[in-house]
């Protein structure tokens, strides 16, 4: 029965955060702050994993495509599609669930335990609107940007690894990137990015906002937020692929 209570409470949180801001300027400031926290705070790890995942996919694709009948440009096509369709949105968002999700859950959990959320409510501020909404909106704005950066860097990393190891000459790799390119794949990657961004931010905010207890419970909520977000990301990944591809 706990799962139904959680779903109900989660939906109530989402509906409760839709209200008129007490002061639009303060909310804008909070939104910009969250964009910086989520975007700039995660940029480093996104850059590192993107370059390496692109490089690894080039090397592994080349390792498996040993037939002389398959042109080398196919390696670039495989790397491009793998990075755009799966690695950039899904892998990056799973990493972001850990980086951003745990941060959101622990920040809100700490605010709950130390009565800072109660203090906001007493002041007459809708704490859901002030604390949760800017995080979700910021995630919806910033995470797709991170996914685009991850896609570009992933492909660049693949090209770099291909050229440096002598697997694919740069001109052939570039030709392969353009061969049979379907722009819908980028749109599909963005659908995934928006869906995953909403999952990461809202699920983590839910677990943080409703923490009860002390430091131990904040840790537990943070872990739970990451685990549930990852599971839902993978589930949504399958669902979107089945529905849209």
């Amino acid at each position, binding site marked *: 029965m706990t799962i139904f209570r959680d779903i109900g409470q989660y939906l109530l949180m989402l509906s409760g955060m839709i*209200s008129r801001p*007490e*002061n639009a*300027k*303060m909310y804008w400031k909070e939104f910009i702050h969250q964009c910086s926290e989520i975007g700039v705070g995660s940029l480093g790890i996104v850059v590192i994993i993107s370059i390496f995942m692109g490089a690894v996919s080039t090397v592994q694709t080349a390792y498996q495509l040993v037939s002389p009948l398959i042109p080398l440009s196919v390696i670039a096509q495989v790397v491009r599609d793998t990075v755009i369709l799966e690695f950039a949105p899904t892998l990056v968002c799973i990493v972001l669930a850990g980086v951003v999700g745990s941060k959101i859950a622990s920040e809100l959990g*700490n605010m709950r335990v*130390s*009565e*800072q959320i*109660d*203090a906001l*409510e*007493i*002041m*007459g*501020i*809708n704490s859901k609107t002030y604390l949760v909404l800017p995080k979700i909106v910021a995630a919806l704005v910033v995470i797709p940007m991170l996914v685009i950066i991850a896609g570009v860097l992933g492909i660049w990393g693949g090209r770099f690894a291909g050229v440096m190891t002598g697997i694919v000459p740069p001109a052939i790799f570039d030709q392969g990137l353009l061969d049979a390119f379907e722009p819908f794949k980028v749109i599909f990657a963005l659908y995934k990015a928006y869906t995953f961004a909403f999952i990461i931010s809202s699920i983590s905010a839910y677990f943080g906002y409703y923490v009860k207890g002390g430091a131990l419970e904040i840790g537990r909520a943070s872990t739970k937020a990451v685990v549930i977000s990852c599971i839902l990301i993978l589930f949504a990944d399958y669902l979107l692929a089945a529905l849209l591809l």
Partner: protein
Amino acid sequence: MIEVKNIKKSFGDKVVIEDVSAVMKAGQCNLIIGTSGSGKTVLMKCMVGLFEPDEGEILYNGENFINMNRNEKTEIRKQIGMLFQGSALFDSLTVQENVMFPLNMFTTWPTKKKIERINEVLDRVNLKDTNKKFPAELSGGMKKRVGIARAIVLNPKYLFCDEPNSGLDPQTSLVIDRLIKEITLEYNITTVVNTHDMNSVMEVGSYVLYMYHGKKEWEGTNKQIIFSKNQRLNEFIFASEFLKDAKEMRMLEETGKMPNDRNIDDMIK
């Protein structure tokens, strides 16, 4: 003035508050006292709307807070300041930003005017040159004073203090108690203090509500406590031999005779 009428609150099957009524007047410190688990924090949270009572009414100047819609409640809450047990300061903000927060949210004042107001309230709580410090850099007593400054910055009509002395030494507790009392009188605020600190009761308790197992056990003034015959109240307030002696000394001062036919020489020994 705040009136609490027949409040009942339960969590699941457990009744935490039952049939509690009280009248808390403006310009005086109204204390809710009781042992841990007696329901005083729940009562205070019902009064400020953090919990919704199962039954009863909470009237702010005659208007029932419980029946109000969210916007009406927000308007009342703008008139409420609250000092939390752990101060509840925003960790990521400096003292100045913490105190400025309600001003930023609810006023359109220019920054200069806001800074003047912040300096005024920080000065009022005897905190100077702390504007740029973060809560982590402050002592417990200083955090409480910043909490009070934030609570009074919008000139509230109602001030709620949840265990303002918890974790503080007796001297600092006295400073906080006197500060709350002075502010209450100065701004004619209806102040509600939730405490189990006996010094606070005797120092600032113009009206005292004693709760026992979720029910109102006794009410009166701090002076009436001395002469109260309520056994539970006496056991709670004058728990130690030292406090019992102090009570009897106070009775001696007030009436000129010793209670229970005790000899003053025995007490001095």
